[in-house]
């Protein structure tokens, strides 16, 4: 609970340090990535399953909402909900048979699924605008369009706090304990009477829905979307954020997303060495903090005491 309050305080106080719309933009992107990572962390950190296709769900949310709103004239809130539901439904349909298998089958299946979604988005240019992308109408409710970085900041900030709250509650619930038991030992968990497939499916569908929602929000916020956000590369970026921040740590996912979204912006001072410095920071963190940023720092703090 203390962590949640701290996060809420950070969201509330951050605007004091945000001098212009560009700063707000970075804060919003951090928030949107953090939302996806908190969801993905439920799957990777707690259910012990790796998804290499989360950008696909992000893409379904983004393009689903964009197409329904731009091409079929749906009100953006309805298209947002429909696109989120579509991402969840697809995860459920795909996850049901696959999650009965053991090992890394989910990783392989999501890898394939993500690539298929990315190819469909790139080739179906009548609907998606193809590789050059498409425009997306702004988010509006009863005639009032949500525009401006400040308004979006508060929306994304509130959603981030809500997602973290949801995640923390879930982890502390019987479902969360079952998930953690699964991560520890699937056999032992099943012996204890936990339906492993059902719980893994729940985590998978939930994380896909959250990715879809964040995707749809990103599309409406940016006003323009390209297939780049649905590619395999973006899937990897999301997994890296979770691992970097610390698996099985909700706040780790938030910190990972924040650092990896903001760092490239700070590193532009290195010009052509930007990528080298970025890679160096990643490697050093993984070598000296193998469990991720937040769990390592938490452990150090405990040891001090």
């Amino acid at each position, binding site marked *: 609970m203390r962590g949640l309050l701290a996060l809420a305080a950070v969201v509330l106080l951050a605007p004091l340090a945000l001098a212009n719309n560009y700063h707000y933009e970075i804060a919003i992107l951090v928030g949107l990535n953090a939302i996806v990572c908190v969801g993905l962390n439920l799957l990777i950190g707690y259910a012990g399953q790796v998804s290499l296709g989360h950008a696909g769900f992000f893409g379904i949310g983004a393009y689903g909402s964009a197409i329904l709103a731009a091409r079929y004239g749906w009100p953006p809130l309805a298209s947002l909900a429909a696109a989120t539901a579509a991402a969840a439904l697809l995860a459920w349909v795909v996850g049901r048979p696959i999650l009965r298998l053991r090992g890394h089958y989910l990783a392989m299946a999501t890898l394939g699924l993500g690539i298929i979604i990315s190819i469909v988005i790139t080739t179906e240019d009548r609907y998606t605008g*193809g590789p050059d992308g498409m425009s997306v109408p702004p988010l509006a409710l009863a005639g009032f369009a949500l525009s401006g970085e400040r308004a979006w900041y508060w929306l994304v900030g509130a959603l981030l706090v809500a997602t973290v709250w949801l995640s923390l509650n879930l982890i502390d619930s019987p479902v969360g304990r079952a998930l953690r038991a699964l991560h520890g030992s699937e056999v032992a968990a099943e012996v204890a009477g936990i339906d492993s497939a059902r719980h893994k499916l729940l985590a998978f569908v939930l994380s896909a829905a959250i990715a879809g929602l964040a995707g749809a929000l990103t599309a409406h916020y940016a006003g323009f979307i390209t297939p780049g956000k649905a590619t395999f590369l973006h899937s990897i970026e999301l997994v890296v954020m979770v691992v970097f921040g610390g698996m099985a740590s909700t706040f780790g996912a938030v910190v990972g997303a924040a650092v990896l979204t903001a760092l490239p912006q700070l590193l532009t001072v290195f010009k052509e060495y930007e990528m080298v410095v970025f890679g160096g920071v990643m490697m050093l963190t993984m070598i000296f903090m193998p469990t991720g940023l937040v769990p390592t720092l938490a452990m150090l703090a405990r040891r001090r005491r």
Partner: protein
Amino acid sequence: MNLRTWFAAALLAATAAVQAQAPIRIGSFLSVTGPAAFLGDPEQKTLELYVERINAAGGVLGRKLELIAYDSGGDAEKARTFAKRLIEQDRVDVIVGGSTTGETMAVVPLVEAAGMPFISLAGAVVIVEPVKKWVFKTPHTDRMACDKIFVDMKARGFSKAALISGSGGFDKSMRAQCLGVAKNHGIAIDADETYGAGDTDMTAQLTKIRNAPGVQAVLNAGFGQGPAIVTKNYKQLGIAQPLYQSHGVASKQFIQLAGDAAEGVRLPAAALLVAETLPDSDPQKKVVVDYKRAYEARFKQDVSTFGGHAYDGLMLAVEAMKKAGSADKARVRDALEQIRGYMGTAGVVNMSAQDHMGLDLTAFRMLEVRKGDWALVQ
């Protein structure tokens, strides 16, 4: 007047003087790394080179130019974030950049809202059609390439053509444009084949085209490796009809990749490719030869049309500032719109309120590969 007011007045005068001397800030975001690096890399080099040269010659309106460039890696979202950074944080006076259509279109809503003159270096027609108040662009469009090719086909007495295209953004956009304008030129497209991005053999598609009755010429709308493979397969299958390529492969690399098979292939391209072989009477010769020599002397690599687009973008911005007599955004925008008869590497630019690109078909030259080099088709 006491000492304090004196001091304040002096300070005020000093700040005013500094303000007058403050550099004009040119913002840019380019795909210097990533899949579109072949666009962004020469563009960035060109901007750096010419900002340096302009400053060495005394700058613009007595002020130096300052280039602030970011690498978007071809990612539209990054491009948008950097554009926001240029507008909000760096407070640039004009933006010259956007290597790809996706990056450009992602930034359009921002510059329109901020009132920032923006000269894009990307190809597609959608950037300037419909006209957007603050958005201009320097490269030719794919529709112009289609027009140029169909005009040449018609001149050779062809009326039935086949189309083969890749699945990238450039390929798809050009295919759509060509299908759209073919009728205007009285050309019927009798076969329309596509290939995937990573395909290494296009014989199947070309065999279909060969078997289509009455096809007199074949047009390949493509980018990168694909067109070189198409050209090779075309020769292997012994297809006799003339083959046209697009401006997307207008670089020496294409001839190297396709080898002998490239002989006789025609394509529309900017004059830059044949800079030195242009007749001296050509009004564009001086511009393209100067740019080519400056670029090649500095970077020891072949000049490309993409770098030329950045040259045109920067020069148009400078020209507009000189015309406007200031770097004020609204006045620069108005001046940009009024530029007529400016000679760039892409051709003569005649901007207007209806046309924010300002190029016509004379900007393209029809080239043919002869003995492993480009030759002008008269």
